[in-house]
């Protein structure tokens, strides 16, 4: 399926723009934030970009630490900014943006929304050494890439087309940009990661994505064998475990089983361990996870 070698996580992190993709719930946001932190700590001026997070102020750019910035990228603002840049004359842009038809098209026009989100990121790359994009979960993330392809292919002429074509070129270039797919060592996410890889390769054939398996559980084969649990999950009668202890043993076996499938498919696995968080800590659970992941990333020398 893939003739090019998959890049290692370290190689991907050396590129100026990193897209962190994956299915919802795999810990994409915490991984992306941990990567951004590790990059900043390594002395690179870094921007973490999240898209349309309803829990943050739209368009907010915050400085989190030395060399570390965070942006909540929102299509409406990105569109306004883009129009302002292209039309140059402030009054004209104002007239244009206030128009109800324009407002409608910016919201409902096919792909405009997605295009300007990536456009903002693409534009910002000149201002930072390193951009880490926390992509929305699979479907919408892919729609974003698909929309630049649509604009560069279907709608010739006009600055939007020209910019889309240039964006496509940047994102297709392994020197400029990397795709990191985060997955959990579970069956469905693994499968979906391969589908995601296939889709990205179709758009960017010369820019192979890399994989990162998150939340690896401790290995408990011996204990499971002592309790006579079959190492092959397909043998188990029910998908539901008996107790927390039973779950722990089965979880470990399931991961072994699934990762073996990946290794058999020739995929080298780089991973981050499951993080235990302390409830009594002053830090939020999310921050604790991010810090612990950052430490692992730094220890592995990826940043």
């Amino acid at each position, binding site marked *: 399926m893939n003739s090019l070698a998959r890049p290692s996580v370290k190689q991907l992190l050396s590129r100026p723009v990193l897209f962190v993709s994956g299915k919802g719930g*795999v810990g994409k946001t915490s991984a992306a934030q941990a990567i951004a932190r590790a990059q900043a700590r390594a002395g690179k001026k870094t921007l973490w970009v999240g898209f349309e997070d309803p829990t943050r102020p739209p368009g907010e750019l915050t400085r989190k630490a030395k060399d570390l910035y965070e942006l909540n990228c929102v299509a409406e603002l990105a569109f306004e900014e883009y129009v302002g840049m292209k*039309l140059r004359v402030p009054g*004209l842009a104002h007239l244009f943006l206030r128009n109800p038809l324009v407002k409608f098209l910016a919201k409902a026009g*096919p792909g405009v929304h997605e295009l300007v989100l990536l456009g903002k990121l693409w534009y910002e790359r000149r201002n930072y050494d390193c951009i880490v994009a926390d992509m929305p979960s699979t*479907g919408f993330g892919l*729609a974003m890439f698909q929309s630049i392809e649509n604009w560069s292919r279907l709608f010739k002429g006009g600055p939007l087309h020209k910019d889309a074509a240039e964006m496509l070129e940047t994102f297709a270039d392994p020197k400029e940009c990397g795709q990191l797919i985060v997955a959990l060592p579970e069956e*469905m996410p693994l499968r979906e990661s391969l589908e995601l890889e296939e889709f990205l390769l179709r758009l960017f054939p010369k820019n192979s994505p890399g994989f990162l398996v998150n939340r690896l559980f401790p290995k408990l084969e011996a204990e499971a064998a002592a309790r006579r649990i079959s190492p092959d*999950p397909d043998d188990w009668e029910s*998908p539901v475990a008996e107790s927390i202890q039973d779950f722990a043993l089965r979880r470990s076996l399931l991961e072994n089983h699934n990762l073996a499938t990946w290794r058999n498919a020739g995929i080298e696995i780089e991973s981050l361990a499951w993080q235990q968080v302390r409830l009594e800590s002053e830090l939020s659970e999310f921050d604790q996870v991010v810090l612990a992941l950052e430490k692992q990333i730094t220890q592995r020398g990826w940043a």
Partner: protein
Amino acid sequence: MKSILSRRKIIITAGTGGVGKTTLSASMGIRAAMDGRKVCVITIDPAKRLATSLGMQGLGDQPTDLTEQLRQALAQQGLELPKAATFSALMPDTRSTFENFFRSLTDQEELADRMVRNPLFQIFAREFSGTNEYMALQKLSSIHESGKYDCIILDTPPSRSTLEFLDAPKLLAQLFDANLIQWLVVPANKIASAAMKKVLGLMEKLMGASFMGHMVDFVTVLFEMRTGFTDHLRRMIRLMESEDVGVMLVTGAHSDFSEELSHFRGHLEKHGIRLDGMVVNRTIGAYRDEGAEIPPASASEFRSAVELLRSLKGREERGLENLKKIVAAGGLEPRLMPELARDVHDLEDLVQIARRLD
């Protein structure tokens, strides 16, 4: 949960991504069938393995009847399916649904052909364009109108796009109602407003002549179809707001989810859609703790793994406090379901989960 599954005609499951919503929706359908209902589960983009395990042939326009398969799976566990019950599942082909939908809006084949050929239509019809959700709703209403089912479960994609799909009917209705569309349909030389002429000129400059050409064509065809379209939209909105429909929120126990969910609940309120409950899926807290039963001599990895899960359970309990607040106003309580030890392979596995939904 039980009363919802035995009463509500249409249950839409919605929520954050990666929380096992598809599996849960299928299990809810099985639970309702076990109560003697005629069930149809509609699922968009399910994991292929689940579709295979349900015995489905892939994408289709008609539900696959799985009543006999379910009867057998229940028999394996010494259970019986009530006589009146039926169980079907449908994985709509959103692309063909989309095309059929447009064709149904007009008698003029030529007009429909013109629509389907437009590159903008092709984009809208694409897998990830957000039209999926709207088409799911379209499928839902046609299955509902068939009268063959008294309990339909619609498994929607994760919540952000679900919000979009709730907005879609109103957004489109706005396009027609506000007469925005006329600016694109009326030939440029007939536009009286100088400001509008200017704006259209700028738009062409920015987006390119070819985009504008396709856009005008697309909108013109849409305009021709507007009567059928708006009628359809109104019917959908009426259905969504009717007593027949309720939404079941499905989430994980993380406190990070609570903000997104309360945002979501706000949206439901705005649209006048009923909230039926909340399932907190994939929890460790749904499992009992063997506690002192672990032999003290057990390997230290085992003990630390169990500690890891216990701390996770503690986190869940904390997250749950916030989740409770979201549904408390409606007098509802979140329902805990366990994190599965392995993937679901067949109907029997789904029955195992359904049995926990009492």
